Every structure is written in C-alpha cells, then in structure tokens.
C-alpha cells in the first residue's frame, strides 16, 4: 500500500446503502431518526421501508430509550443523529436503557469531530470516544472511510449488543481498498503497512493521514508501520503490543480530544504491557471553533506533519 492519492468519498452514503441492504435482507432491522434523517443518511431507509422507520423529532433522549424498548422485543435497532446529539446529550439513556441491559441498539453518529467545520464548537463532538468507551457493554467502532463504513454497519447488525459507530461529515480518502482490508471484523484492527522503526496507529479519517505520514517518513529512511484501529473498544491489544515491542515506539492519531480518546486507550495498554515512548496526535484539551475543515485540522494539530514530527520525537526518545 504505497499509494497516498486516493479517491475521496463521504461516509454517510455508504451508511445509507448498508441500511437499505439490511432492510432488504433482514426483517428485524428497524431505524430511528431525530429530525436529521435527511442529513444523516437514514432517509433512504425511511423511503424504502416507511413502516420500519421512526422519526422521533428533535427528541434524542426519547429516541434512545424507545430504541431500547424496540430492542427488548428482538429488533435490531439503528439510531442515528449527529454525534453531538446522540452521545453526551443522551449519555444517561444510553447507559441505563441500552448498555446496562445490553440491548441491540446500534448508534450511528454522523458529523463527528472537528471537521464538521462552520457550525462551530457547539456541533463539533470531540469527546464521544471518551464517553462511549467508558460504558460497560459498549462496543466502539470508527471506520476509516466509506467502504469500511459499509462493512462496519453490516457487521454491527450481526454483532450481539450495543455498538457505537462514529462517522464524519466531510469527504474522506478511500484508503481501505487493499487486500489486507477485505475482511472487516469488529474488534480486529488492520495492518495497513509494515515497518520496523515506528508504529503509527490511526483511527477514522486519520488512518489515511498516517499512511501519508509513512510515505513522508520513508523519504527520510524511516520505516513506519501503520495500523488502522477501527475498533476502539474492545481494543485489539495483541497487535498493539506486538507492534510496540517490534518497533519500540508509537504515535497515535485521532480526530478527537487527546483526553481519554483512542490514544489514551492505547497508552494504557502500553503502560501495562510494552512500555515504549509514545506520542498522541489529536485535538488538545479545548473546544473547537468555526472554520473550514482543513484549516481546523491544521490549527488543532491533525496534519500529516504533526504525525511525522511525532514519529521523529518518539524515535529520538527511544534512542536507537
């Protein structure tokens, strides 16, 4: 996988296609929206299967608990809204009515992260991974691109228990087309590129950035391993520990606050199993603001350069 100029595609149409496919093959799948069906990608399902789609209006708490009720009868329920409205706002409903009874509610959060852009901090959800991974019984998936989104949605339908799937708003490079990426499995991450000098662990839209960073590092004779950590919980500890031991240092990259996100989760695994120099690339402990996605990525430290600098830093600290 040396290519770094991929086609770009948004993730939501892939989500939309997967839902319609599920609607056709599985009668037990129902979908819930909260006055954002046209933005999130549930409108196509609503069109095809109106009797199996519920629009609860701008009432996310009610939506989540009602989804739990639907799930108690054996339905597999997909609930979708913007990440900002279907995590923190409904944390207690997810905790009490979905996770504690371990019900089959799949929360598909779109417009996650800072790349929401112009809407500003009120709409930029950058702490959802922290919230969702804290919940017992919750499974947390962050697809890297459109094809992986489709696979993740289908996998979530077959997976027993609550799942949180995080999608973005913007176009993302289609980087999971390689042969190693074909078999998607919840809880398993993908080795995107092998290398010995440093490991770059990316999730979501940062996977493509890690691959680009690896290309950049190769120009400086640094061989970087790249892992697509598409499931944040449960963590694929084996691949992380192995990579840490073999490369001796690690950089994580996520479009999320560095406070208790993916990098923090990985750090805890390393501290207990393979203590190596590590750097978390992510949004510093702050709220975002209005701006163009690329401008914001730059300002909040989510660029290829940030990953490359991180790699040089951990390699230096490892001192090899």
């Amino acid at each position: 996988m040396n290519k770094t100029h991929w086609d770009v595609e948004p993730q939501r149409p892939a989500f939309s296609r997967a839902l319609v496919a599920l609607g056709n093959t599985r009668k037990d799948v129902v979908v819930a929206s909260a006055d954002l069906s046209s933005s999130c990608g549930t409108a196509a399902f609503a069109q095809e299967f109106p009797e199996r789609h519920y629009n609860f209006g701008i009432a996310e708490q009610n939506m989540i608990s009602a989804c739990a009720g639907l799930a108690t009868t054996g339905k597999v329920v997909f609930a979708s809204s913007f990440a900002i409205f279907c995590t923190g706002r409904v944390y207690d409903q997810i905790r009490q009515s979905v996770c504690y009874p371990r019900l089959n509610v799949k929360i598909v959060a779109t417009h996650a992260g800072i790349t929401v852009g112009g809407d500003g901090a009120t709409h930029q959800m950058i702490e959802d991974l922290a919230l969702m991974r804290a919940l017992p019984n919750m499974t947390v998936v962050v697809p890297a691109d459109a094809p992986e989104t489709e696979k993740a949605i289908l996998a979530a339908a077959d997976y027993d228990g609550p799942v949180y799937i995080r999608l973005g708003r913007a176009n993302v490079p289609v980087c999971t087309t390689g042969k190693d990426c074909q078999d998607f499995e919840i809880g398993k991450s993908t080795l995107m590129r092998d290398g010995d000098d440093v490991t770059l662990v990316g999730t979501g839209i940062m996977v493509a950035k890690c691959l680009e960073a690896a290309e950049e590092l190769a120009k400086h004779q640094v061989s970087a391993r790249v892992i697509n950590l598409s499931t944040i919980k449960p963590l694929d500890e084996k691949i992380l520990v192995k990579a840490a031991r073999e490369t001796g240092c690690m950089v994580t990259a996520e479009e999320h606050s560095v406070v208790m996100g993916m990098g923090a989760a990985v750090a805890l695994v390393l501290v207990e199993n393979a203590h190596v120099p590590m750097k978390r690339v992510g949004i510093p402990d702050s709220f975002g603001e209005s701006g163009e996605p690329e401008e914001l990525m730059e300002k909040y430290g989510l660029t290829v350069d940030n990953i490359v600098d991180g790699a040089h830093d951990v390699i230096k600290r490892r001192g090899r």
Partner: protein
Amino acid sequence: MDETISKEKIVEMDEIARKVRRHIIQMIYEAGSGHPGGSLSAADVIVSLYFGMMNHKPEDPKWPDRDRFVLSKGHAAPALYGCLAESGYFPIEELKTFRRIGSRLQGHPDMRKTPGVEASTGSEGQGLSMGLGMALAGKLDRKPYTVYVMVGDGENDCGQIWEAAMAASFFKTDNLIAIIDRNMLQLDGPTHKVMSIEPLADKWRAFGWNVLEANGHNIGELLDALNKAKQTKGMPSIIIAHTIKGKGVSFMEGAVGFHGKVPSEEQYKKAMIELGEGTA
C-alpha cells in the same frame, strides 16, 4: 419602552428588518454554510425586541440591569448577529467574518466570543432553561429586567422545553417571556409530519403559561403582544408568533430545502434584489 409606538417607528423597524434580512443572506452566502430559512422567519421578532422592547446598552453589553434575549434556536444566529450589528454591539463590517476561523461570529451563538450574545446555544432545547435561570436570578436580586427567549416550533419536540415550561410557571417567573417561531417547518419537513406539536396553545396553557398569538411578521402586532405579556403578572407568558420560514425571499418561503442550504450565486443576487438591495 413607550407602549404606544408610532407608525413612523414601525416603518423604521420594518426597514431595519429588511437590512437584517440582507445581512442574513449575505453572511450565509459568503460563509458558504448556515441556516437561511429559520433566520429569515425569526428576523422581525428579533428586531421588535432589540428596537422596540428591550432596555439595553450596546456600548455596555454587560450592564447588569439589561433585558436579555436568548436565541434558543441557535442556528438562526445570522438573524441575531444582524440585529446586534445594527444595534451597534460590533461593526457591521464584522458580519463578513461569520463562520470564518478566528471570528467572533461563530456558526452558533457563543456568549464568550460575541458582545451582546447572552447564551451559547445551538443544541436545541436548552435556551428556555437558561432564560429561566436568568429570570430566577432577576427575581432573587429584585432586578427590573425581563428575559426573552426565542424557541423554534420544532424545538417543542425537545423534552427539556417542557421541563422548563413546568418550572417557569411553578416559580411564577413573570419576567420570562418566550416567543415561538411558528413557521410550521423543521429540518426533515413540516412539523405536523415529523412530530406533531398541536394543540400548541393548549399545551402551554396547561403548563401554566399566559399564551398570546401574533403575526410574527407584523411588528406592530408583535409589540402589542409583547407589551401585554410584559404586563401579565404571576405567570410566564409565551407568544406564538405565526411566521413563514424563509420570509422575504420568494423562493425560500415555506421551502424545507432552505433550512440549511446556501443560495447559489444566482439565487443570492435574486434574494438581495427582493430584499431591496441598494434602496437603503
């Protein structure tokens, strides 16, 4: 303010509302994102408040005795920013920075960044509770101010609105006046198709509110209702302002599609002409 408002004053406010509408279209067009429909429907109500009702000092935005306005449907920020700029809270020139990186004018209202913005909103359903808190403090400190809160009709779906409704009548906050922007539309479609909120007036009455109705694009009628609300003692008041989403731009009026859509260049030009560009 004076309760009998002259015809001239109303004509003047109508003109300000047209200017605010032009600001709305221009801001959203230049930013390349934003919510025109719900900003245009809210414009006359917000102008009535800032230019006909509220006791405020643009040169001293933190004056403790000021009346307060909370835009609970925060996505209508362009209408608020247009009004604040016309009132003198910040230069009209600054409207150009809407949604740009580093700007004081965020996509949704930010009370820490923008002079005159009283509450950070954007997640629907929270502004009425914030206004309630301000009203409770006004009672506690025996302050003379009134708190106005604008709520979207779709926003009435939110459970928290009804928690605030119950609490406000329980605490008898007659210094709290809510205005519903009853434009009959929300994001996914007409309110009666997405989630019916009728009978709306009866619901608010049942929650212990004094309910008034007005044409939300008739500033004289709005001021009348607002003054009646202000004189009502012992209970909070709510005005159901009947409005048209996209009001003032023919092809945006009543169009669901313009909830969060930016006009094309051609549409932008047409809208500006319809709103009287170059006439004032």
